[in-house]
């Protein structure tokens, strides 16, 4: 009896110890990441001091000042202009790419038929899409939407096709055997297993599509982050170019770390058991 108690006590102690160590690790990791950013800033600061000219590389405080000016100005208008277009583009990519992927996954013939177009579409340099969107729509809201849609679509299609091929045949057979209707099977078996693949397609093309979206704004837009970068480039305003680029990068990294990872976890929740194995 005492033995058991002692054991459980020491187990508790072990657990506490493990938790403490884990917390220590986490603290040390945060510290290292912080150090990394300080290192980044230091290198930047030294480089700007060595180059000694604002037109070449402005110092961090100068850029921070510029960022403040941007926030006092119309940052949110420009920012939302880009976000809305890119989201609309992804929406279009999912709406068109999903049925194409279904077709590719369900039928061997269409899989072969669409294979080459999808592969080539995925290898086309972003410049092509950006210029094409400009030619089709001129300076307009729809240019970046088209470019993002075109660039993300092949990723969505390829992943959905993969997902459809991977749907567990036995689950469908069993559902049919127990008298589930076609629409029930679709709703409760096919959709949940394909949904993560749609998301995977969006996620894989996420950073690429954003880049092409801003590039399209460089060509044909009067608003948005890409437009601002180009405007300041033409004015030869280096601090403002760097400030807008940093805002873009910060937004992308935050989105990646806090939004995408969370959605991913939620969508793949039903596969928890798989991960635990």
């Amino acid at each position: 009896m005492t033995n058991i108690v002692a054991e459980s006590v020491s187990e508790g102690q072990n657990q506490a110890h493990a938790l403490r160590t884990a917390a220590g690790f986490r603290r040390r990791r945060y510290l290292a990441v912080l150090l990394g950013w300080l290192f980044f800033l230091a290198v930047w600061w030294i480089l700007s001091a060595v180059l000694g000219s604002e037109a070449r590389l402005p110092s961090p405080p100068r850029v921070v000042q510029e960022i403040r000016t941007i926030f006092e100005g119309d940052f949110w208008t420009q920012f939302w202009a880009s976000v809305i277009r890119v989201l609309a583009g992804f929406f279009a990519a999912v709406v068109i790419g999903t049925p194409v992927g279904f077709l590719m996954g369900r039928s061997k013939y269409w899989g072969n038929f669409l294979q080459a177009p999808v592969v080539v579409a995925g290898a086309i340099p972003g410049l092509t899409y950006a210029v094409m969107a400009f030619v089709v729509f001129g300076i307009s809201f729809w240019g970046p939407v088209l470019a993002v849609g075109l660039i993300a679509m092949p990723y969505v299609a390829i992943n959905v096709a993969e997902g459809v091929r991977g749907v567990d045949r036995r689950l469908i057979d069993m559902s049919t055997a127990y008298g589930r209707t076609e629409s029930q099977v679709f709703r409760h078996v096919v959709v949940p297993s394909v949904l993560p693949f749609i998301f995977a397609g969006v996620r894989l093309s996420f950073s690429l599509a954003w880049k092409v979206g801003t590039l399209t704004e460089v060509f044909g837009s009067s608003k948005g982050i890409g437009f601002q970068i180009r405007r300041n480039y033409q004015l030869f305003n280096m601090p403002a170019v760097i400030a807008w680029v940093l805002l873009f990068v910060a937004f992308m990294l935050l989105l990646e770390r806090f939004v995408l990872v969370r959605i991913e976890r939620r969508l793949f929740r039903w596969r928890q058991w798989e991960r635990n194995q």
Partner: protein
Amino acid sequence: MTSAPVTLQESPPSPGPIRQWLISPIGAQLTAIVVFVGLWQLLTLIAERVPGPAEVANFLYVEITGGSHGGIVTGEFWEHFAITLRRFSAGLFIGFTAGLLIGVVIGSYGMARALLNDTVLVLLTMPAFVWAFLTTMWFGISWRAPVLTVAFVAFPFVAINVAQGVRAITPDLRNMSAAFEVSRWKQFRHLILPAVAGYIFAGLRFAIIVGWNAILLSEWFSGQAGVGFRTRYWFDANRYRGFVGWVIVFIFFIVVLDRVVLNRLQTRAFRWRDPIEVEVELAQQEQVGV
């Protein structure tokens, strides 16, 4: 692309086999090409400004053979292509070498990883056109801008892949090498390098794809020669057949390079490994890399 109908005639005349051939993988792919060219032709009927396939093919013929486009404008092809290729390989070499070195350092030392990982991520997030702008502001219109644009864009892709590869090496082997006092160079040559070869290759492949886009952008914005410059030349001249012709050329180049050359090389280089494992790895890269 235009050779598709010829191949169609080569198939046996009896109706059964034709149908069978049409639904075979190659038949399906060729049908896709024919349908694509047909749709393109149809589009020119609806939108007058869109140049048709024949028009573009004719343009490319004149441009490549150096004939006259009408008036004093003559075709220029190989000189632009050679300039771009030279800059592309120079930039790739710089970016790849730097990425390899930093990648090995990040993968080997925890401290280096903590210090550099986020910096590399920031570089990875920067769009290529930003580098094209920055290098132009730094160096003006010169060969340095496109070369460094490619280098900056390629670098983080190589570094991240190599770091991942180095981290995947089992610590056992490294500990043993350390215990037997194998020199750092020998460890690098015989332990690290073979283990990360696959990751290096993957990094190189990404670098080539993103670098190609980067050099086109850089030449478009600030070139006086090169593929990107020539594409813009025709675009600015409002001659869309020239623009579409060059777009087809640079897409064709990257698809052939990636699909035919790199894909084959990769499969060949790793034939000593389990083929299924390689297959899976290639498929995964395709997902991220296309």
